[in-house]
């Protein structure tokens, strides 16, 4: 199977700190893959490099058969590669429903259609997705009034609204009430299964990622330390050392 996302030998340093060193990975279309590693190992930096947040120092990134190494954030997003943020970013002054309505696929915001009101179909879809993540009752509240965990859910729903081909999720369960994590994981699987969205998930929590991903890459100190099926990675001594050494 040809990978939808292909990262080859990517390097990125900030001044003296090498955040990513010769990282290569590939994610096949339609799968859920995981990216793990101790804090500061360069996971978020890799996401930022992929989506065009900053230039990379070397290597190449391909998405859906296209070279995207030098494209910028909005262009890459319009190709159907979206990301969520570790610190969670939503439009705080707008209601949840408005947050959803402006997250329609960018192709729907053309020269003329942008001046129209959102269509009834879009409103229905927005409400359905809010229902899907359990925020329907709060749809008329400003996003900034939600709790951190709810904002994460809203951000996830916004990403779904945009119908991406692939979604990069940066620690989707961090800050979410532990009793709700299983429900969230089920929704991630549903998004993958029902909407056909390829997922690459950064996760700090080993237990969670083992349940979710079918293949896992592990970063440590900016380098790719190990990769493989969850049960393989779980047993890998280097991964265990990295985690134990870091915490």
């Amino acid at each position, binding site marked *: 199977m040809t990978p939808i996302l292909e990262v080859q030998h990517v390097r990125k340093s900030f001044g003296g700190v090498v955040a990513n060193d010769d990282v290569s990975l590939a994610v096949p279309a339609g799968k859920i893959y995981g990216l793990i590693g101790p804090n500061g190992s360069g996971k978020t930096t890799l996401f930022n490099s992929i989506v*065009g*947040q*900053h*230039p990379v120092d070397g290597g190449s990134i391909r998405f859906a058969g296209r070279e995207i190494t030098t494209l*910028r*954030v909005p262009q890459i997003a319009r190709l159907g590669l979206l990301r969520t943020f570790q610190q969670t970013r939503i439009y705080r002054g707008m209601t949840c429903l408005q947050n959803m309505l402006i997250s329609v696929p960018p192709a729907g915001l053309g020269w003329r259609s942008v001046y129209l009101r959102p269509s009834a179909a879009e409103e229905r879809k927005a409400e359905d997705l809010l229902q899907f993540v359990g925020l329907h009752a709060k749809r008329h509240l400003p996003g900034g009034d939600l709790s951190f965990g709810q904002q994460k859910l809203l951000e996830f729903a916004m990403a779904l609204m945009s119908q991406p081909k692939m979604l990069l999720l940066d620690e989707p369960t961090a800050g979410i009430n532990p009793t709700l994590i299983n429900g969230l994981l089920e929704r991630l699987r549903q998004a993958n299964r029902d909407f056909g969205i390829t997922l690459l998930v950064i996760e700090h929590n080993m237990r969670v990622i083992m349940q979710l991903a079918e293949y896992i890459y592990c970063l440590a100190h900016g380098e790719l330390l190990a990769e493989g099926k969850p049960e393989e990675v779980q047993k890998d001594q280097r991964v265990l050392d990295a985690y134990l050494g870091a915490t």
Partner: protein
Amino acid sequence: MENLRLLFAAPSLSLQLLLDGVLIGAIFALAAYGMALVWGVMGLINVAQGELVMLGGYAAYFLYRAGIHPLLGVPVAAILLFILGWALYRVVVFRVVDKDLFISILATYGLSILLQQLANGLFGANVRTAESGFGTLVLLDGAVTISEIKLVAFAAALLAGAALIVFLKRSRMGQAIRATSQNARAARVMGIDTDRVYAWTFGLNAAICGASGALVAMTWIVHPYLGLPYTVRSFMIVILAGLGNVFGVLAAALGLGVAENFAGFVLGAEYQAAFIFGLLVVILVWRRFSLARQRRYLT
């Protein structure tokens, strides 16, 4: 464009403009360094920067009228402005330090209008000078002339800047200021009273502006409306040099002084203000595009 040809015909004229530009630039550097200090430590862009310069100029002028030599007026103006800066912080600025940037810009813009119009109402719109009584140096058989006061002001500006830097490096308050600029929260945890640090920072900024204004008053003129160009100059210099880079500030300031002098000569004095404000826009837009190429923003 006639003047442009003149420049090529008479190289000594270029030398004259260059010298004048360098000498004026040191005075710009003072106000710019103050702006960088406040920006770096308090995260605030002070639009009233130029008005502090203007008030320093008036302080020197009135001291001169009272019989005090303008050079002595420089430290006195600095002290007076320190007090004013401290007071401004205690009354207004502390309320906007942690607010979003636009609030602080607008509030200090309001202060700038307030101070400018107060000066206009109290001192009148007339142009004033604090006569220093220095002569003029004639070089290269009269091809280049330098008024001694500009040389003295240049030296005094460097001295004032050096004094501020030594204060920041050596004194306890200076260390607290630098600690706060690196991480205000950590500084608070370590027991530094950041509110006091901010008051000092704003006061020191006003003082350095005051010194700069006093030098302006004795080298050129003061009037109530000279503030905004100084604010804009400081802003440009800081953008070019970055925060916390003393030599960058000095280099950018001298460069700006030279550029302004040449532009004033070539375009004519009536376009000098347009040049300053236009240059600001050009620099900003150039920075933006050069950063955008690296997928970055001016932040």
